[in-house]
């Protein structure tokens, strides 16, 4: 058999395997969601079958899906996602801007690592929402408070992931780079940052998860737009169908953002 024929057959086999794998992933994705919605539907039906709890029926998936068109037409979903997305983005950027340099110092300086370990571990274990009264005093009842809470929730995974990434860097890379004439700037931009990019992005992914969870309760108080505000507003107006619709939006946007992180991890990972 010629090399070209073998290559062609190998390519066909790879393409076929790729389609099979993608097809299986799609089936799993749809089946998983269907199971979730069926469990949700049956659960609500069972609760609502009690006449005292008949109004629970609005929490079901069908009323939630029925609420989507008017929530979209009124611009409630778009406004909420935009406002929350802005706060999440700014909060995450602040966490990255503070967390990555601190993580680099922590990964390179043994003394800093030893001094910072106790206070950092202590502060990491404090629930981000515990800072809310202080944040309100400092920033008032405004979006800045939400951004502060997102940043303080997101900064710890980024610091620790960056430091852990640096600890894994092969010290010989620094020796080789120095041997080839690297300046401190080259060392940072050409060696350290690419070497730890995967770990930093893993930290950002964890931070995003924490920040997204903190964002919604942080928006319950003192702001007039955002996903948390929309949920709170729906609760207060007893509009349970739109409340569940907004919860679905929160889950979907969070899932998509995590998917973006996974793509970035694949793109910037050099580990084989």
């Amino acid at each position, binding site marked *: 058999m010629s090399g070209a024929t073998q290559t062609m057959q190998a390519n066909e086999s790879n393409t076929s395997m790729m389609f099979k794998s993608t097809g299986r992933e799609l089936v799993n994705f749809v089946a998983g969601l269907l199971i979730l919605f069926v469990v949700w539907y049956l659960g609500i039906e069972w609760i609502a079958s009690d006449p005292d709890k008949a109004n629970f029926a609005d929490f079901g998936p069908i009323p939630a899906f029925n609420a989507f068109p008017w929530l979209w037409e009124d611009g409630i979903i778009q406004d909420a996602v935009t406002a929350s997305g802005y706060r999440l983005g700014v909060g995450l950027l602040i966490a990255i801007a503070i967390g990555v340099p601190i993580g680099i110092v922590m990964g390179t300086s043994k003394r800093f690592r030893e001094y910072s370990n106790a206070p950092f571990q202590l502060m990491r274990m404090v629930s981000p929402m515990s800072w809310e009264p202080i944040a309100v005093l400092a920033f008032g009842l405004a979006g800045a408070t939400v951004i502060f809470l997102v940043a303080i929730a997101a900064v710890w995974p980024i610091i620790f992931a960056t430091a852990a990434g640096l600890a894994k860097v*092969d010290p010989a890379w620094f*020796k080789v*780079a*120095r041997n*080839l*004439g690297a300046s401190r700037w*080259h060392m940072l931009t050409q060696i350290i940052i690419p070497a730890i990019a995967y770990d930093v992005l893993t930290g950002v992914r964890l931070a995003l998860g924490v920040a997204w969870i903190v964002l919604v309760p942080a928006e319950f108080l003192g702001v007039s737009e955002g996903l948390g505000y929309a949920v709170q507003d729906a609760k207060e107006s007893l509009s349970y169908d739109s409340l569940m619709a907004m919860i679905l939006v929160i889950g979907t946007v969070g899932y998509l953002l995590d998917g973006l992180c996974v793509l970035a991890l694949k793109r910037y990972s050099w*580990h084989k």
Partner: protein
Amino acid sequence: MSIRGVHLDIENLIHRYTPKSPLTFDGVRIEAKPGESLVIIGRSGCGKSTLLHIIAGLLKASGGKLRLDNEEVKGPSSRWVMMFQAPHLFPWMTVERNVGVGLHFAGWSKDKLRDRVAEAISLVSLDDYAQNNVQDLSGGQQQRVALARSLVMEPEMLLLDEPFSALDAFTRAALQRDVRSISKELGFNLVMVTHDIDEAVLMADRALVMAGSPGKIMHDISVDLPDPRNREDPEVQKMRRYLMDTFEEAVALQKGNGGTQTKVGSLSRMNGISEPAG
């Protein structure tokens, strides 16, 4: 690529890691002409790798003088580049980017360094792999990339710290032959440390036997053999035996009385098989 050699002059070099630690080596004296290949052989722990790191400017000596073309070595420089035991390539870069990284550090633009990088990659016969990630290459190919990364800097001296010890026998033999022929073709100095006597015979113009604790250069032996060298050649075999005997004698002398005598000789002088080199 235009490379020339350098005059290496080491006088009474001493080293200790901390002021209180014992001497790693003591009173090392080495002189090498431009283009000469020196191979330092010795057992693990005799200080040969430390000596190489000092010559590269990656470590500081505790005393003595180290000059290249009458210029004191104060730190790393693109004029003298070191290749390590493992290739230590940057795994997030392609072969091309790894080879060009030193020129990038030196401020070369992408356009300017492209031709020189291609030339260096060609020199180590990896033209077809230029765009591959280095993790896709075999150990031998990775060490070739490390060699190209050193050669692209057009060094006057290439320092090799047991760079082939982790490779299989076939790849090691090919790289030993290629590195020696490239160094002779381009005219740069080689200073290599190894504990492999065969490697010393195949690659050296002069073999320096280092032994003892603290380490000392015990013998300086001219390896005056024609190129290309074949390990099955009787002359090569004879030189190998001579080097082995000299090495064992040096180790025994050190163990016996802590002797420090430096003996300069060559196989030709000892056995009369060929004229001594220069």
